[in-house]
């Protein structure tokens, strides 16, 4: 009915118009001046890029009339009909500077509009997380990287790429976790200043920098799982002037990450796909084969005995092994649990909208498959990004959801495989997996011991579970109000919810329980479940005022923030799963013996007041001043509020008249800063007087409470006082140099202060101790060749960094720890960390060695008084080296020619003192019951007169205590990434309905050249990664 009406209306309207036109008297028409019609002609034009190639999809609008909008077609042409005279045409496109053209009747048509690219625009600002700052007048030391730069040096994750870009950002090498996709790396910015986790005082890594994602604190896991395609820029804030606005959390540096803001225009869909291939790198292993291994055992006297019965038993066991070698058994155990992992990653993004309302949607799927069979990390996520702008107000909302599941390999730790003997076969005669590979019995009499060799492959064949997962929801809302041009108010609120769970199930048949017999038989099998929830709410408001009066520019920013975080987790362990087929916790026979539920919980609250100001005179001289007062529930009640501040001064020398004429000096800036920040990566309840309850006993029917410790009401953050000087130089428009030198003193180091037990306690937390770190860093890049017309360029870059640290003052507690460690009987073979004033935190302590005595095969040491001795004495230990490299950094080149591109990046470290524990554990301290390095056979002392490197080996393992014999100088060169690509921007893709297409190939960590031979990836092997990527926009 309605439909009919509309139709009727339309028809009648048409008829009326027609009729009207016809019926208008001639003279009425004549009254309209003819010139007026001609004065508002259609604007016809063509938009091209700097290469004169047409640009499609460019938004062209009338500035005064927002509704009047169009986009360029495939060949870059557009038609627009202005309603009035003398209007302004606005031409905008992503990646190009917006142009405005004032229309007049003299404007020559068709317009040819050439748009300039804005590639380097992002480099001109520093994103501090509290707005952006012009680099021109910023006194702090910061580096900013764009998404393109990050993707050029790797496509794995943000942290990997940053490591290849900035020498001060270091993922500490962890030879044990290798390329485990589920292991979080240890991150440091500008080296370490905190004393390591001595007695579990710290939560996580004491040197971890602060991560800020879209204005709010994010944890390392979130950053690692962040899709790189969502990133707009990353800024590393290194010195006090840059980071002081983050106050008590900023001492270790701040990493500010901003995600992309959707651009207006017609809806664009872009897709990025990566197909990754991870191949295990086992080249660092040099294990004995079956024949060699048996020979080594024989040499070591494993099959020699005095008693004839024992000898007979040993002979039998030797013969059994010999026989299996004769039958051709030579198992290469290392290859058993590994695979080539094929992973894939997809990102789909939609964006568009009008100037008023813009939207962005993205969806990510990432499945990283590690090289250990069955291990992977899967992320599924998506976000909705809305931005609304009207007049003086902007609202922006980002909602992000991420689901993660991480599976650990059912094959267990890689180290199990490096230990197994090659003369044992994992399969029995009929080809089934054995559970027990072999046994070794030392004596037929009572008192003889049996070593069992279990088959980890058998465990992998069982139905085990070992995973963790989380789902996270982040909702961030921003509002901005600009009442007048120079004044802006901003308010933000962010909420994050994270729910996590992990399960570890081993059925009763697992070899871990093989020796549980008798009544314990029924307790075989274990199931551990842990679940956790964490929430955080962050909010801040601030005002920003900036004004330029003559030669004076002033910026003042002030605000306040509030943060509340809460987290808890709980778990339990159940025992007794005798059936391999049921893998659900309810099938347990019982809880773990004497087991109680486990759990942790924490609440943290914080308030901060921030103010910073920047003044610059004539763009030549500028100064920064920032101050933050912040209070945290973690600090002692008497020391709740802390003040952090910084002052920075800078000088743009190139703006001076005496340099203005020297055209080859494009930029010469000197800057310096000093200030204080804090770090508080410690237990949130550290400063409280807390009662615990006796949970397993009562007294007279009352559950008693006792004090957990002696609280320190004055406990506060660790304070870092940073000094930084730096310079930025740009010469000949080709050479960029950035140099920085810094000193950072950490005061109030949070350490245990030993108390006389008559106070009731052994220690309490005190802000004592000081460390100092010093260092320099620099990046240089040189544009060798550049041709705008073919978009070709070739540039080389290198960067370097050095830092060293020193303990200036330590408390008696640390001295106590030194003696405790000397007395400890654990890990006798590795140098112990010792704390001594004047020495580096990373000092390697060992007894100087005089080599292996050719007569006896024993090691000769030099004692403190200079005499030679066979005895290892902890008091003879001296600092034999420092494990900080003399220099570390990156180098490489970027090449692009007519759409073809090649980038490489190397990572190097030079002159690091390294205690080679592979040599200690796998060659010299070997337990010949397990497989060993082949060097055992060839380089070990065998008989009198041997000038050997390694001391003699006996059937029972002997421990080599820390000795200078195993100190080596380590220098590495890692080919961290190669990226080759072709960009189809030179081809006309429109017939395939594509706006652009880029195909790329990556390989990461392809090889490591090192002066030191050591086993890399002991618990999880390292991987070489190859990947193909495809980027396109529809």
């Amino acid at each position: 009915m309605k439909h009919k009406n509309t139709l009727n209306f339309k028809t009648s309207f048409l008829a009326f118009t027609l009729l009207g036109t016809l019926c208008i008297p001639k003279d009425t028409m004549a009254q309209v001046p003819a010139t007026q019609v001609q004065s508002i002609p259609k604007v016809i034009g063509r938009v091209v890029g700097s290469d004169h190639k047409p640009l499609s999809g460019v938004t062209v609008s009338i500035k005064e009339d927002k509704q009047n909008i169009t986009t360029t077609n495939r060949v870059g042409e557009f038609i627009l009909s202005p309603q009035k005279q003398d209007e302004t045409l606005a031409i905008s496109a992503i990646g190009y500077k917006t142009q405005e053209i004032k229309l007049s009747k003299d404007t020559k048509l068709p317009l040819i509009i050439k748009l300039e690219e804005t590639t380097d625009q992002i480099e001109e600002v520093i994103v501090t997380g509290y707005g952006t700052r012009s680099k021109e007048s910023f006194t702090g030391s910061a580096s900013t990287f764009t998404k393109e730069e990050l993707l050029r040096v790797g496509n794995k994750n943000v942290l990997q790429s940053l490591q290849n870009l900035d020498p001060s950002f270091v993922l500490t090498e962890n030879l044990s976790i290798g390329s485990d996709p589920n292991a979080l790396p240890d991150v440091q910015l500008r080296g370490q200043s905190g004393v390591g986790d001595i007695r579990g005082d710290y939560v996580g890594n004491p040197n971890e920098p602060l991560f800020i994602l879209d204005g709010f604190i994010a944890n390392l896991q979130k950053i690692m799982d962040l899709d790189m395609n969502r990133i707009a820029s990353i800024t590393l804030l290194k010195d006090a002037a840059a980071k002081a606005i983050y106050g008590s959390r900023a001492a270790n540096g701040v990493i500010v990450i901003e995600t992309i803001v959707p651009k207006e225009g017609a809806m664009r869909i872009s897709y990025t796909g990566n197909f990754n291939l991870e191949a295990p790198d086992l080249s660092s292993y040099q294990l004995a084969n079956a024949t060699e291994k048996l020979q080594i055992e024989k040499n070591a006297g494993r099959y020699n005995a005095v008693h004839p019965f024992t000898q007979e038993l040993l002979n039998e066991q030797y013969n059994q092994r010999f026989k299996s070698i004769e039958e051709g058994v030579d198992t290469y155990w290392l290859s058993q649990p590994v695979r080539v992992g094929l992973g894939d990653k997809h990102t789909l993004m939609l964006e568009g909208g009008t100037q008023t309302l813009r939207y962005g949607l993205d969806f990510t799927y990432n499945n990283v498959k590690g090289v250990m069979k069955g291990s992977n990390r899967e992320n599924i996520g998506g976000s909705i990004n809305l931005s609304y702008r009207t007049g003086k107000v902007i609202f922006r909302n980002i909602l992000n959801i991420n689901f993660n599941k991480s599976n650990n390999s059912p094959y267990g730790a890689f180290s199990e495989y490096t230990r197994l003997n090659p003369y044992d076969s994992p399969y029995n005669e009929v080809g089934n997996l054995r559970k027990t590979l072999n046994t070794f019995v030392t004596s037929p009499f009572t008192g003889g011991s049996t070593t069992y060799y279990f088959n980890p492959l058998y465990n992998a064949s069982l139905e085990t579970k070992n995973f963790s997962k989380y789902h996270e929801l982040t909702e961030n809302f921003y509002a901005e109000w600009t009442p007048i041009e120079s004044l802006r108010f901003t308010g933000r609120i962010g909420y994050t919810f994270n729910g996590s769970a992990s399960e570890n199930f081993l059925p009763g048949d697992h070899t871990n329980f093989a020796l549980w017999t008798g009544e314990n038989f029924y307790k075989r099998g274990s199931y551990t479940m842990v679940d956790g929830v964490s929430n955080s709410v962050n909010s801040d408001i601030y005002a920003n005022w900036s004004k330029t009066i003559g030669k004076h520019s002033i910026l003042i920013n002030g605000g306040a923030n509030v943060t509340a975080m809460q987290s808890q987790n709980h778990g339990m362990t159940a025992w007794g799963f005798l059936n391999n087929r049921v893998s659900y916790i309810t099938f347990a026979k019982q809880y773990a013996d004497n087991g109680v539920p486990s759990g942790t919980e924490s609440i943290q609250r914080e308030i901060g007041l921030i103010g910073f100001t920047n003044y610059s005179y004539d763009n030549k001289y500028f100064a920064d001043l920032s101050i933050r007062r912040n209070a945290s529930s973690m600090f002692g009640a008497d020391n709740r509020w802390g003040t952090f501040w910084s002052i920075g001064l800078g000088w743009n020398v190139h703006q001076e008249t005496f340099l203005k004429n020297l055209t080859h000096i494009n930029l010469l800036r000197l800057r310096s800063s000093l200030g204080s920040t804090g770090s508080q990566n410690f237990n949130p309840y550290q400063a409280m007087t807390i009662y615990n309850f006796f949970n397993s006993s009562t007294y007279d029917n009352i559950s008693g409470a006792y004090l957990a410790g002696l609280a320190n009401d004055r406990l506060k953050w660790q304070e870092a006082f940073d000094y930084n000087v730096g310079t930025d130089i740009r010469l000949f428009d080709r050479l960029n140099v950035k140099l920085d030198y810094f000193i950072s003193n950490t005061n109030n180091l949070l350490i245990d202060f030993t108390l006389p037990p008559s106070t009731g306690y052994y220690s309490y937390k005190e802000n004592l101790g000081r460390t100092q770190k010093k260092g320099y860093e620099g990046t240089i890049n040189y544009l060798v060749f550049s041709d705008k017309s073919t978009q070709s360029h070739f540039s080389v870059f290198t960067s370097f960094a050095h830092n060293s640290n020193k303990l200036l003052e330590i408390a008696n507690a640390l001295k106590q720890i030194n003696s405790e460690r000397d007395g400890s009987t654990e890990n006798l073979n590795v140098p112990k960390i010792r704390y001594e004033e004047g020495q580096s935190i990373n000092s390697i302590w060992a007894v100087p060695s005089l080599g292996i005595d050719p007569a006896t095969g024993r090691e000769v040491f030099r004692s403190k008084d200079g005499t030679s001795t066979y005895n290892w004495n902890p008091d003879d230990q001296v600092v034999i080296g420092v494990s900080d490299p003399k220099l570390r950094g990156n180098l490489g080149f970027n090449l692009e020619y007519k759409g073809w591109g090649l980038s490489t990046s190397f990572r190097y470290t030079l002159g690091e003192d390294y205690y080679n524990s592979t040599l200690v554990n796998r060659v010299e301290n070997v337990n010949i019951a397990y497989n060993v390095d082949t060097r055992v056979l060839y380089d070990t002392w065998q008989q009198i007169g041997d000038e050997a490197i390694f001391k003699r080996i006996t059937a029972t393992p002997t421990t080599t205590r820390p000795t200078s014999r195993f100190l080596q100088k380590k220098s590495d060169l890692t080919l961290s990434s190669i990226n080759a690509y072709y960009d189809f921007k030179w081809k006309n893709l429109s017939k395939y309905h594509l706006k652009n297409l880029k195909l790329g190939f990556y390989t990461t960590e392809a090889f490591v050249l090192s002066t030191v031979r050591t086993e890399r990836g002991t618990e999880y092997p390292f991987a070489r990664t190859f990947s193909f990527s495809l980027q396109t926009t529809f």
Partner: protein
Amino acid sequence: MKTKQIAYILVAVVLLTLNVSCEKWLDVQPNSQVKSSELLSTEQGYKEALAGIYTLLTDNSLYGKELTYGMHGVLSHEWKNYPLAYADDAQYDYETTLSQGRIEGIWSKMYNAISNTNYLLQNIDNSQVFSGKNYEIIKGEALALRGFIHFDLLRNFGVSYVLNPNQQAIPYVTQYSAKQTAQSTVQVVIEKIIEDLKAAKELLKYDPIYTGEVINEFNDNGYLLNRQLHLNYYAVEALLARIYLYIGKYDLAEIAANNVIQANKFAFVSQASFASGVDPSGASEQIFGLQLNTLSLNNTNFLSDEGTTTFSLDQASKSLYISSTDDYRSYLFINGTTTNTLNNIYTLKYAKTTDDSYYINKIPIIKLSEMYLILAESLWSQDKDPLLVLNRQRNARGLSSLTVLPTDVRTLFTNEYRIEFLAEGQLFYYYKRINQEIIHGSTTNLVNSKGYTFPIPPNETTSADRQPNR
């Protein structure tokens, strides 16, 4: 103008309330633990904190093992057989790892309990949360605890009073703080203990065991029901008697011991209770005992056939204890049954009672029989006749009365201490009090070797300035 002023005031008020609420907001309350201010904001919290101190004392490093049948049993050579780990203690060698570890455990755990006590005392006067006379009773108990713990620390780490009361001994700690407390001499420590105990006694005049107030399960959930598990009024009096005897104030010891005995609140265990195994640890005669939840488990592990590191007697050493089968205490022994333990004789003092309610899990700390022995010794030391008192104690144990005092009265006391306090740790202190050079079962001269005084543990001397205590 006026509106402007009002505006300023409003802003100031808002800022002030913001500031106050800020502080409150930042003062977070953990879920997994309880903040002290939270716990001590209720009477129940004080009761829990007090129960916590008693529980701390039941640790195996303290009265749960070492200060009763463990280390102190070995030191007094009560046991014929003891674990190899105690070999150095038997030689009074306190410098080896194992014995030093036990000594350090005693020192640090005792002071930890003292610190908990001090924290409670530091807060109790500012709390108005108590009902009835609980303020007086809880504070009294806490003061008594402080004195009690310090006295046993002094008996371990201070030289015997008869040797030199002016020798530096232990710090008498009265604060919950990281500040170290200076050492005091034996004499000064004793004075401070007595001062605390006297104050405690005054407060404990409201103790129901003293007032005779009838307590049942309905009064305050029966909190004041089991006074013997707390340092009650009579426990403080008994402790004073023990201390006066230790410092040779026999007249005062006599009065105090008499006070406890005359009160008639405690009764000797009957023959039937011993024989049937209902009350082997003598719950009814404990003036103060500690409740140890794991007592029967400890008994199994350390004092029975089933344990691997056990303390036991043999036939020869048992006969030293039990001279007559009439002695009710002869019920408290059992022979080992396995081939390896056939010659072992275990004490049944801490065996699981056959009656679960009142008698279970109690370790005697101060018993009625000690009051009789203190009274007797005080009389004897003042040249008064102790025979009547001694006979009352003997009769209570099933032994016949002595008609005449033997010539060697000291041996009579020694033997009585040995049998009466087996596995209770009092024998070593008895020897120390009289500073006996050679004790039964050892050839070491305890006085010359300074075996009666533990050295202050090294972790105390390295971080605090301590004078020699031996």
